[in-house]
Each structure stands twice: as structure tokens, then as C-alpha cells.
């Protein structure tokens, strides 16, 4: 029985994008595009939950609203796009 090939990731000098985990990618994406934002009201700060943020993102992108970081959601997050946030702050 053959073992699966194990990819070796290297850090390329001068590369702007660093290798990041799916969770890191998702968190960065949700924050950058306004789905997960810190709400400031009368000094009270609350963080929209990741699941809710993922659902909002899935609704915007026309994906099934699972609230989970499934493959289609991650794939959508990796696609090239406009830098303007989807949810205004």
C-alpha cells in the first residue's frame, strides 16, 4: 500500500502571500470584507460569531447557508475578487 505524497511547503522570498491555514484564511476574509466586525455601541463591543459571519458570506456569494467552513465556502474565499468590503462598516 503506497503512502500519500506529502507536499513540502516552502517560504518563497518576496512572496506577499504567506501560507495560511483554512481557519486563518477564513478569519482574515470575514474580517476584511466586513462579515465579521466589531460592533461598537455605547462602549459595548460584541463580535459577530464566526458561524453567523460565514452564513452572511454564503448568502452574499449564493452558496448553501451552512455556517460551516465547507469546501465550497473556502473555495469561494480563495477566488480573485474586488477589495471593496461586501458589508459596509
Amino acid at each position, binding site marked *: 500500500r503506497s503512502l500519500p505524497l506529502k507536499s513540502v*511547503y*516552502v517560504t*518563497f*522570498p518576496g512572496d506577499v502571500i504567506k501560507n495560511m491555514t483554512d481557519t486563518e484564511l477564513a478569519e482574515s476574509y470575514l474580517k476584511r470584507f466586513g462579515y465579521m466586525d466589531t460592533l461598537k455601541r455605547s462602549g459595548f463591543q460584541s463580535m459577530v460569531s464566526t458561524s453567523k459571519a460565514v452564513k452572511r458570506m454564503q448568502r452574499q456569494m*449564493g452558496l448553501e447557508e451552512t455556517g460551516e467552513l465547507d469546501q465550497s465556502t473556502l473555495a*469561494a474565499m480563495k477566488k480573485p*475578487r474586488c*477589495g471593496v468590503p*461586501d458589508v*459596509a462598516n
Partner: protein
Amino acid sequence: YKTFDGDLKWDHNDVTYRVLNYSPDMEIALIDDAFARAFKVWSDVTPLTFRRLFDGTADIMISFGKADHGDGYPFDGKDGLLAHAFPPGAGVQGDAHFDDDEYWTLGKGPAVKTRYGNADGAMCHFPFTFEGKSYTTCTTEGRQDNLPWCATTADYGRDKKFGFCPSELLYTFGGNADGAECVFPFVFLGKEYDSCTTEGRSDGYRWCATTSNFDTDKKFGFCPSRDTTTIGGNSDGDPCRFPFVFLGKQYDACTSEGRGDGKLWCATTDNYDDDKKWGFCPDQGYSLFLVAAHEFGHALGLDHSNIREALMFPMYSYVEDFHLHEDDIEGIQYLYGGRTGPVPTPPQPNPTTDIYPTIDENVTDDPEPTEPTPTTTPQPVDPTKDACKMTKFDTITVIQGELHFFKDGNYWKTSSTSDAGPKGPFSVSQKWPALPAVIDSAFEDVLTKKLYFFSGTRFWVYTGQSVLGPRSIEKLGLPSNIQKVEGALQRGKGKVLLFSGENFWRLDVKAQKIDRGYPRFTDAVFGGVPNDAHDVFQYKGHFYFCRDRFYWRMNSRRQVDRVGYVKYDLLKC
């Protein structure tokens, strides 16, 4: 569709844009064309027109940049973020930025426009055959001068049509060398360079000297990207080197090994392990036209749509035959309404496709003069006096909805509802016999429709053909030391601001008295306009401050939203 909070939109339909710099990925002419087509997407379905400026501040300032490019919203290298734009407004608002770590094409691989050769600047045809071999990129085969070339038809042997591909050996863009080619080797800070470099720059753009010594001659230009160039990485756009060694293994083609994002890359020397020089492989690239059309949607006031097929959907996808989606049309027409009447034809620049510095001229600076428009109104007193040749007017004001331009006893007028040029000249003395030749300022009282004319320290009030005056402006409460009233702005009903020198006063027209609390400094209230404007007037809801040939236009929020030429924009010459 969605609009930005508060339905941000331009308060004028004649939107201006300016291209501040260019990407090395495509010829300047192709980039200009992509932007023009992207604007046309929106002007086709709205009353908006888009006019390109070549200097000064435009509503939409367009630029390419990499990573942290100065607006607090850095790009992220190749792929990921492609571009962004700001909703309408002053300053950075309305501007569109494109990530130059992307590979900008027309969406289907390298868009290579040729120069010279015998194909009249046609695009390369890939693949093409030359001496029995097929080429998918420009090649230096068959030449001894190392200049890359391509065929512009499928078969060079049959058609013999060719042109030269972008190369630093052929030309540069930007810089200060008028597009001259690179000279290799060249010396920069005492070190010799054999190829384009990013050394000495913080923006990551490749440049070269166009003489053998930059340190002494200071002549430089930016290097156009070759179609074989690598993107990003750390190789300054050098081409891939095959085979190359990576982690001890040999590669004969681009690979995604070693990367978690699946992007194809290559080494630019024969051994990555030793040299660590690499770059991403050229791919289909992103359509500058499609991305620009999307970004300009933001710059006009549209936020992201959640309709996947809409242009304003946030994700990029290439479509061959682009059509604006109904959702986009509904969105933009919600803001600006639909297009009515004939297709607008704003004055267009005639940029040369040669080299960047030569097109850096103001299109509105020297267009062909237009013939005076025939008129059925009273015949001009002296047709040789052409308003379009005047550099400065005594006063400009709106009377019965038409702009009137006064100069030395004559006046011209333009209609606010047509693009016809100025009518006139007409004689001031025939129309208003009591007035002197030089009128410093004038306004029409919105309530009584009386016309107020100022000349020196005197003023006249016309009601139809009857006139009162001259009276001294001191009677209004203006100080005795002012020489003349240079402009007038209506401020609501019954109030008019009178400008002189660096001050203005508020006149209560009914009481014929200056209000208390004046004068005030013009620059304290109207920031950003010339302190020495000689014509000040209100037209179509904007305030205009003129100095010489130029006007500064201010919106109701007292933001200067446009600077332009009286001659072209107001006189419509």
C-alpha cells in the same frame, strides 16, 4: 443591487477621470482603451458622460499600485484582491486602484500589441508558426538583435506579417527619457546593471537607465513586461529558466510544488535551491476591462450585488461577450436615471499611442476651434470678435437661464440646455443703454428678476428696459475703499454675496443693505478656490470662481469638485 449608505453619487453628470500611471503588462493604448470601454458600459445606460483629463484633479483618479500603495488598504500580491474603488466624493473618494501584482490582460492570456514591423501595430497572433515551429509567445528566433517579435497572423511564412513585442530593448514608459530604450549595462549608485531592476524603488516597479550611467545622466524609464516575464516573486520579471532544480528535483515546466495555494511558479535561474530566484508563471491574467467596469461601478455609487451574473458581484469571472446585467442597469439607473436622447459625445482626447510622456498633455488645452453657431437671435455686432479667443471676461453671470459673458462692451451667451457654442457678440449698449462698456459683476435677483450691474464703484438696476442708477456702491453699505465688485452669488431668496478682493459681503437685496457681520474672508468660507477670482457666479446649482482661463467649480457642500477651462466647459467652444 446595492448602493452605498446614503446613496452616494456624483452631483453632476459630466464625470471626469484621469489615468495617473500605467501597468507594464499592457501597451498604454490597450490600457486607455480598456478604461474607455469600461466607462462606456455605464454611459450607455445613464445620462453620465466621462471625459478624460490629463492633468489636475479628476473625479475618478485611476492608478496602478502594489501592496501598500498609500490609501491604507494594501493589496495582497498576485491573485486575491484585484482592485478597489471608493464611492463618489472628493479626495480619494471616487478613485480606482488596480493591483499591479496581478497580470493585467484582456482576460485571455498575454495581450501583446506590436510596434514597428509591417503589421501597423496589430496584436500578436498566438500561436503562430515560423519556419515550421509553433510559437505561443514572442520569440527572438530569427533575429540577431535579441528583440522579441511575433507574427500577427497564424502563419508567418504565408503572410509575412509581424511586429515587435514589448521589450525594454525597444522602449520604456513613464520616467523622464521620452520612452527611450534601456541601455545595458548601466550604472546606478556605482553598481552595474545588465537588466531592469527594482533597486532604489519602494513601489516594486522595474526600471532601467536610458544612458550608460544613471548617476551622471539621471535618465530613466520603466520597463514594459515581456509576455514571457514572470510575475511577482523576486526576479524582477526575468523569464522562467527550464529545467530548474527545486528541492533537489528537476522541473521542465511551471509547478505548484512547494506552495499551498496551487499557483504555478518557476525558477528564473537553473537552481532554485542555490539562488532562491523565482516568479509566478504568466497565465490568462485578469481582464482589465472587466475589473475596471466593476470598479467604476463603485466609483459611481454601486456597492456589491449578490447576483452572481451581475458585474457588481464581488468575485471575478471572465466572460467573453460582456453585457451589463439587468441588476447593474437597475442599480445605476436608480442613482442617475436612464439615458435619454442621442448618444452623448463629450470631447475626446487624441492621445498618441507612442510613449507615456508624450500623452501627458491636457486634452482640453488645444482642441480644434469650432465655427460660431449660426443664430436666429439678434445679429452679432462684430463677428470677428470671437468669445472662444478671449482669455478672460469682465464678468460672467446667468440671465434668464443663459450664461452671459461680458467683455469690453460686448456680451455672448450660451444656452444651458444645448451644447451649441456661444452666440454673439451682442452690444451691451444696445441691450442696456445706461451701462458702461466694462461690467465688473452682475446678477439677476431670483425674486424680482431685476438685473443688477456693477462697474467700478457704481451699480445699476434694470427692470425690463427701465433703469435705476448709477448709484454708488457705498449706498449699499460697501466700504468706500473697494475698487469694484468682482462677483455675486445668490444665497437663498433675497440674499446675494458680493465679492471683492479677498472678502465678501452679504447683500439683503430687498433692504438694499449689507448685512451685519460682514465682510468675511473668502478663503475662510470657500476653501480651495482662488483668492483673486475675478468672476464669481452661480450656475446650475454650483458656485464658479474664475481666474484667467480657468474656473473652480464648488458644489453645494462647498467642495471644489472640478477645475476646468471656461472656454470649453462653459463657452462650449
